[in-house]
């Protein structure tokens, strides 16, 4: 298949690229102590929260953006970013769906996120974050009966201050990195989850993030605590409208798996990737990390097709003995997208085990890098890691890079690393076409096949959605 044909295939429209007209209250761009005070006051936060934010802000002022990633972009000027945008109709938080602005509901319907409970996929509770505010959490009562807390982080600050004070920043410290510090200073909203001891969360929990307003940054913060012996599966989906400007997204996600607990965190991210010439798109700088205590397990699964720039390394600190960390990732880049993504598995406990499966697909003039660190500390006896890192190239104007770092300080460790780079071959395309399958379908089938090991880790509904997302991302004008 020729380069021109391939190009045509991958030139597609961004389906979630519409904007919603809602009356909003948006802060003028720029960041200062005043902005943080305003933000905090707007949310009616307690004094300790404001102090925490200001402390983060001062740490951030001392920091510089990381420059080690394989990414090229103009410096990000936070003075052009608005740190607060909120649909006005949310001022008095809705008590039921009937009170939610119909425009907002329509937006989610367009995105295929059914907010009405009767239309919900059975057993999925959704917390929707629209720009900076949490719109509504469905199924709250059912979860309440199981003792599960699932609410917005703003609400949690008011209602569960002990939990927030104990755990927020315990996994990703305020000054962890430039973007995490920024988030800690200005985080807008996000989700909070607490699963009590021994409870298996009765449904998948899901948050849907959407950036709507122009020039707003989205700084959501998620904290999930799975107490001893509990289980939770959490899904996160993201989209943003198509805009010419770049929008900043700097999130922090912290996971705490207490002894014997299991957290499964899945993300499907299709923030607007920018156009063919690299105009517009989301700058996605995310810090995601989990701490796994004795006999616990954390697995990250991500399917990323969006964002102009992705800087993201969902990691697991394997603190407890026998703890398990997993990372399953599909990252598709096309047009001028740049992704530098991977994971860190930090083995501290004995008999800890980690698995990394990364699938990178590059098309157009994009650049797709895997960056992973496996660190085995001196006291991590019998630690094991398996890493498999596969790149698939569509065409020859894109790039795939692999940066695996291995630091082993314990000779009993077993570390395996496999890496492959392949192309969608002419032979594969010809076999498909000879059987009557059109090129567009053939590419999407081959790419989906390439990702199978990751897709099978996703919850059922999400796996279907992820497959469709890839198909849409690869769709073109053929036929």
């Amino acid at each position: 298949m020729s380069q021109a044909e391939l190009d045509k295939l991958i030139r597609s429209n961004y389906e979630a690229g519409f904007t919603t007209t809602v009356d909003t209250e948006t802060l003028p761009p720029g960041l200062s102590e005043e902005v943080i005070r305003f933000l905090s006051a707007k949310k009616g936060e307690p004094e300790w929260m404001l102090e925490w934010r200001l402390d983060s802000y001062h740490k951030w002022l001392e920091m510089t953006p990381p420059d080690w990633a394989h990414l090229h972009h103009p410096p990000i000027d936070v003075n052009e970013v608005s740190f607060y945008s909120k649909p006005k109709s949310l001022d008095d938080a809705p008590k039921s769906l009937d009170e939610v602005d119909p425009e907002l509901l329509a937006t989610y319907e367009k995105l295929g996120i059914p907010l009405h409970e009767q239309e919900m996929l059975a057993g999925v509770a959704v917390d929707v974050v629209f720009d900076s505010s949490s719109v509504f959490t469905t199924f709250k009562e059912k979860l309440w009966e199981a003792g599960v807390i699932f609410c917005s982080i703003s609400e949690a600050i008011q209602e569960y201050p002990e939990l927030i004070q104990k755990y927020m920043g315990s996994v990703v410290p305020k000054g962890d990195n430039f973007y995490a510090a920024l988030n800690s200073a200005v985080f807008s909203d996000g989700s909070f989850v607490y699963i009590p001891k021994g409870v298996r969360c009765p449904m998948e929990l899901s948050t849907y993030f959407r950036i709507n307003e122009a020039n707003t940054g989205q700084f959501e913060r998620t904290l999930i605590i799975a107490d001893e012996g509990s289980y939770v599966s959490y899904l996160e989906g993201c989209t943003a409208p198509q805009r010419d400007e770049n929008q900043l997204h700097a999130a922090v996600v912290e996971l705490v798996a207490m002894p014997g607990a299991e957290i499964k965190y899945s993300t499907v991210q299709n923030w607007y990737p920018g156009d063919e010439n690299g105009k517009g798109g989301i700058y996605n700088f995310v810090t995601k990390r989990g701490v796994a205590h004795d006999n616990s397990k954390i697995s990250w699964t991500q399917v990323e097709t969006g964002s102009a720039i992705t800087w993201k390394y969902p990691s697991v600190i394997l603190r407890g003995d026998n703890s398990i960390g997993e990372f399953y990732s599909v990252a598709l880049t096309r047009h001028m997208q740049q992704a530098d993504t991977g994971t860190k598995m930090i083995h501290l406990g004995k008999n800890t085990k980690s698995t990394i499966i990364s699938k990178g697909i590059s098309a157009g003039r994009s650049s797709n890098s895997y960056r992973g660190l496996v660190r085995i500390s001196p006291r991590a006896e019998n630690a094991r890691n398996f890493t498999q890192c596969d790149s698939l190239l569509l065409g020859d104007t894109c790039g795939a890079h692999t940066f695996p770092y291995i630091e082993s300080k314990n000779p009993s460790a077993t570390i395996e690393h496999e890496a492959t780079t392949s192309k969608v071959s002419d032979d594969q395309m010809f076999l498909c076409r000879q059987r009557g399958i059109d090129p567009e379908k053939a590419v999407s089938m081959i790419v989906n096949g390439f990702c199978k090991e990751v897709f099978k880790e996703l919850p059922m509904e999400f796996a279907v959605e992820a497959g469709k997302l890839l198909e849409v991302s690869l769709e073109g004008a053929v036929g």
Partner: protein
Amino acid sequence: MLEIRDLHATVADKPILKGLNLTVNPGEVHAIMGPNGSGKSTLANVLAGRDNYAITGGEALFEGKSLAKQEPEERAQAGLFLAFQYPVEIPGVSNMEFLKAALESVRGAQGKEEWDSVTLLRQARAACKQVNLDASFLKRGVNEGFSGGEKKRNEIMQMLLMEPKLALLDETDSGLDIDALQTVAKGVNSLRSPERGIVLVTHYQRLLDYIVPDFVHVLSNGQIIKSGGKELAHELEEKGYGWLTGEEESA
């Protein structure tokens, strides 16, 4: 159904076919034999429309329509099937998924009734049985980790399901042991019908003991230099190709 007149074709701009003539009528089985490198696979690939295989002169008509103007998938939809000499692997795409997409497209284009998943599975299992492939192969990735013989049988299994009007089999016999060869031949013979044309490309006459052709052609240096009945295959078996290609050179 297939009319090839004075066909000239290049592979990656290198002339390979140099004035080839061949007519296949419905119901006929043709064997194309010839030494390695004579252009047998090139012919099959040109007819199926592979990239880089270009028709530079003459014409090839399938059901009265020029093949040159059709995309590979259109040729498939029109009923042309190629069993590959070297079937390629498509990791992670299950055989079943692949067959579903193929059959949806081809049956749809031919106005045949659509198979629901239950029917599809039943038909696919039956086809597997016919070529002695365990039904578990339907769940595996297309040709992924299959042995050489399994790949060939997988091709025939697909052919049985696709019910082509014209089947081109490129060296389907190579690399098969005698049992597998008989299984494959049985599969192909079951497809013989008055409406269907079959072209067997082969290097050895062995396959033709099991699938008895109506016509045998010898391809050498991009041309058919001799045609005859099934007895020609036996003659080739005895004498090799030298007497023909040598004759050609001195002529």
